[in-house]
């Protein structure tokens, strides 16, 4: 007779890390759908490219490290990283951008630091920042929402652009981005920033066609979709509500104060919330447990700092969006934050 010996506790929640990761991946679906709806197939293709690259890279590195390949390859963390990279990269960026990004994220940022659980930086954001710095042109190739484009961009054309830089009809990305009126359309954040540097008021900047009716055409809905996905995660207890709440509150407070001080040069709080990668960052990136702070108090500090940095960089920095930079900076601060937010052990002063 064989007796089965184990250490207590004997029962266990049935959740697993891989299940958690999968849930997070599923939660990005509303956002991806919104992206597809407003920007076409571009991001889906990028996600596919990044995922394949990430899995291959993970496989190679794991076999080099002689780790338990099957278990770790599909623990979901690599795929999640790839998905986040695919979402963040401009839809029409050349194929090698996402391939390079995924490769960098998995092989260097994650595995070189010791694999899952040991990477100090969020792999997706580190890759994004690397790409942004290395290839600023390609990384700002954000097309305008489909509704504003005068060229139809179906799947085959998108694929063609990504791999050859030209549509089947021979249009370049630049041409695709050009408004009927002859100017290049940027992202709303970009647009506002450019307008402000040109001495316009926010009021005037907001008249740009990319802004549209509310905060920004397309982007606001994409953000709303990620917000929805985030709620699902919170509901499922996959992430704690503390981090996104603290992050959003921090952005809100910062932009509100700025807006109160000078409404002409500062965008509204809601513009901050619903443009760029705010919601993606709040629910899917800052909540990455590995590179974040661990205690509840630590997470509040961590996310609040990120929110503050996002605001500062958006307002004063050279790049239009700031979530990736802010996240990396906070990753660096996380160990320190952990150090100072240790809970008081029961029975200790």
């Amino acid at each position: 007779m064989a007796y089965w010996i184990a250490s207590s506790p004997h029962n266990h929640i049935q959740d697993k890390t891989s299940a958690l990761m999968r849930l997070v991946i599923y939660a990005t679906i509303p956002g991806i759908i919104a992206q597809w709806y407003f920007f076409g197939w571009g991001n889906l293709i990028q996600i596919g490219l990044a995922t394949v690259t990430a899995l291959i890279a993970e496989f190679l590195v794991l076999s080099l490290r002689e780790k338990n390949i099957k278990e770790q390859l599909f623990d979901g963390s690599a795929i999640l990283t790839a998905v986040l990279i695919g979402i963040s990269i401009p839809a029409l960026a050349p194929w090698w951008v996402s391939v390079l990004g995924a490769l960098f994220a998995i092989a260097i940022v994650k595995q070189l630091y010791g694999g899952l659980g040991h990477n100090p930086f969020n792999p997706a954001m580190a890759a994004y920042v690397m790409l942004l710095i290395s290839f600023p042109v390609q990384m700002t190739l954000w097309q305008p929402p489909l509704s504003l484009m005068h060229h139809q961009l179906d799947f085959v054309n998108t694929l063609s652009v990504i791999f050859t830089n030209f549509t089947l009809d021979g249009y370049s990305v630049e041409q695709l981005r050009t408004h009927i009126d002859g100017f290049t359309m940027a992202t709303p954040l970009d647009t506002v920033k450019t307008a402000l540097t040109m001495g316009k008021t926010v009021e005037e900047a907001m008249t740009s066609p990319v802004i549209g009716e509310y905060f920004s055409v397309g982007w606001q809905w994409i953000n709303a979709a990620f917000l929805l996905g985030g709620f699902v995660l919170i509901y499922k207890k996959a992430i704690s509500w503390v981090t996104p709440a603290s992050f959003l509150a921090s952005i809100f407070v910062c932009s509100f104060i700025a807006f109160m001080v000078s409404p002409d040069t500062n965008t509204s709080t809601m513009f901050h919330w619903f443009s760029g990668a705010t919601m993606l960052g709040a629910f899917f990136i800052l909540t990455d447990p590995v590179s974040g702070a661990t205690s509840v108090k630590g997470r509040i500090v961590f996310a609040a700092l990120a929110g503050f940095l996002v605001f500062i960089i958006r307002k004063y920095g050279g790049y239009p969006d700031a979530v990736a930079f802010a996240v990396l900076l906070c990753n660096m601060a996380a160990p320190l934050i952990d150090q100072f937010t240790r809970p008081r052990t029961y029975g200790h002063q």
Partner: protein
Amino acid sequence: METVIERIEQGRFWQFHGGIHPPEMKFLTTNKPIRTVSLPQRLVLPIQQHIGEAGELIVKPGDYVLKGQPLTKTTVPLAVPIHAPTSGTIASIENHIIAHPSGLNEMSVILMPDGEDRWRERHIVENYSQLDKNTLVEKIANAGIAGMGGAGFPTHIKVNTKAKIDFLIINAAECEPYITADDLLMREHAASVIEGIKILDKILEPAFILIGIEDNKPEAIDALNHEIKQFDKIKLCVVPTKYPTGGEKQLIKILTGKEVPSGVLPSSLGIVMQNVGTCHAIAEAVISDTPLIKRVVTVTGQALEKPQNVWALLGTPIEHLLQECQYPQQQKRHIIMGGPMMGFSLPNTQVPVVKTTNCILAPSEKEIPDANQEIECIRCGQCAEVCPAQLLPQELQWHAKAKDSEQLTKLNLFDCIECGACAYVCPSHIPLVHYYRVSKAEIRQQKLLDIKAEKAKQRFEARKARLERDKKAREEKHKKAAEARRARMNSGTEEANKEKSAVAAALARVQAKKAQQSGVQANTTNDDKKSQVADAIARAKAKKAGQSAPNGDAGDDKKQQVAAAIARAKAKKLAAKEQANDDSAEENINAVETKPTSAQDDKKARVAAAVARAKAKKLAAQEQPSDVGTDDTGKSPETISSTAEDAKKARIAAAVAKAKAKKLAANTESDDQRTEGEAEASTKDKDDVMAEAIVEPPQETSTSTQDDKKARIAAAVAKAKAKKLAANTGSDDQRTEGEAEASTKDKAEVTAEAVVEPMQETSTSAQDDKKARIAAAVAKAKAKKQAANADTDVKQVEGEAKASTKDKTNVTAEADVEAAGETSTSAQDDKKARIAAAVAKAKAKKLAEKAQKDNQTS
């Protein structure tokens, strides 16, 4: 405290951090009553079932025991007895596997029930309120009750606290999933539980009694409520269900809002906690005189066909309970003792039920699957969120894997209650608690080693300090002794003055002698008369020496005389050597200061001298073989001075001293290499010895002046000795040196003393013409001899000396041999004496002749 009660009455409680809600699974057993199971084939009773120490066995194999009869007795407070759960025979007492996570074996009593279940005599207590506290505590102790919630701490210790108790908390939370033992007990035996609580109330006299129970036990709550209606003091606190509410620290926090400081017992906060099961056992023990021999055990799990709570006799093998609850035969068995959160899996179903066994869990594969593969921590922080001790399990886990015990201690690893909440929620399925247990064990082990090492170090240092102290004390003692001597000399008392004057006298004598000697030397060869005198003396000496031969010891007058003679002879020898070395004489005198008392009192003086000599001899005897006796020798001067007033002794001593001196001389001669080796070690000592020798001869002369006979004898002896010495010295300088060195410093000093003493005598005699003359004669004789020895004679003398050689240690023996060389007769026999004298004369003549020859040749 009021506010605590107010809050409780309003149903508001505090909260502890974290906690989890694992599936309760209590439905498996809550709806069935507690069943009594059949008697097992045999009972296995580990003699230690609690925290503390095992009791002492009072039964042996083959004994028949009655139900409730104690099997062990307690000799120390932390011990708890065990009792026979039913009547039967002790089959054996052996090591048996016990309920322990690592499947340890422990001494157990194996009891074969006879099926009759016969009780020992019991004394039912109708009204326990008449009993005083101590009796109650004693009853609890004798009933073998140890905490039944899991830890098994002896209950009588816990309730016997001196602290003032504000809250007695009854732990009825039973927060572990599956377990319903306490629940059922409260439902079926609420009255008994409350009785037990009241007994505790009487012992502890708390301000309030709080029963903490989770809200998932409505029937038990009803039952208790019914029982406590009349008692205002008891508050039933129905708290929300959350694991681990039943943890002692957690329940205290929930009910009182206080945190038990780390490393402190709750009683320091005025809180004592007892389990409901324990309360029931206390009531049974006090009221119906039933010791703890059975308990409720939840036998549960979906692998069982009939999970149920049972009354299990302590010692029942788990297998028996599983069979009773219909555990299917299966190849792979997963049996857990305790709950799923904190229990441990059993390696064997022969493990017996013990006092702390509250649950046997036999889960199905589906319920509790095999452990999942552990993957890396993703720092999700969920573990920290649920930790009731507010630790950081993920950080602890890293440091545990890295074996960083310092960090672990800093992160309060030892505050972990091993509740398992962290590991329960960990999505990476890291067996966190297992890591903590291993680390805790390692750290404890390390601490033990550290303590051991520390102790060893302390022992070593203590020893070093002791040796150091001893050394210091010794030095101190020596210094004091030396100072005392000096002080005595300088103190200005009569005695001191005498001492001083004696020293002065000695100095004077030495000078006189020197002068004399030089004079004598000049005359030696051509003064017949003197040589005659010398001859006579030599004869006398020989006779005496003969006497001494058989018996060198003191006490007997004759012997004493002989000894004296020998000593003198020896001294003479030394003196001969010394002539060459006048300078050192003065040094010696200081060392010798002890004897002078006798200077003005002849008799006494003589006695003292004798004593000194005797002692010196003894010392010398000791000294020669080994240096160890240094301390003793160091003391000798003092002793000698004190004895100076005893005449007889003194004489003896003097004799001994002389004898010794002789010996030394002899030794030196006989063994060149040996002596040389020693010699080089201390040249100074050598000087001392020689100085002594110089001083001695005068003394002899002087003694003889006052007492003619004695004086003559002494002179003779002295001459004889001088001859020998001279022979040695002259012929072989190195050899003599060796001799001197042979005596260690102490020895040297002693002998020096002996020498000084004689000097004093000499000085007395200095004023007496006769004496002076004799002395002169002696000196002349010596000078003659010396001269003679200077070369040719050496061999002969050496031969003689060698006869006595090898045994340095035995002074008397040597003396004997020497004496024998001259005469074999005893001193009391006139004839012999005469013969001896003749021999001596002959020798002296020979020597004289040689000396003459030599002189001429040279």
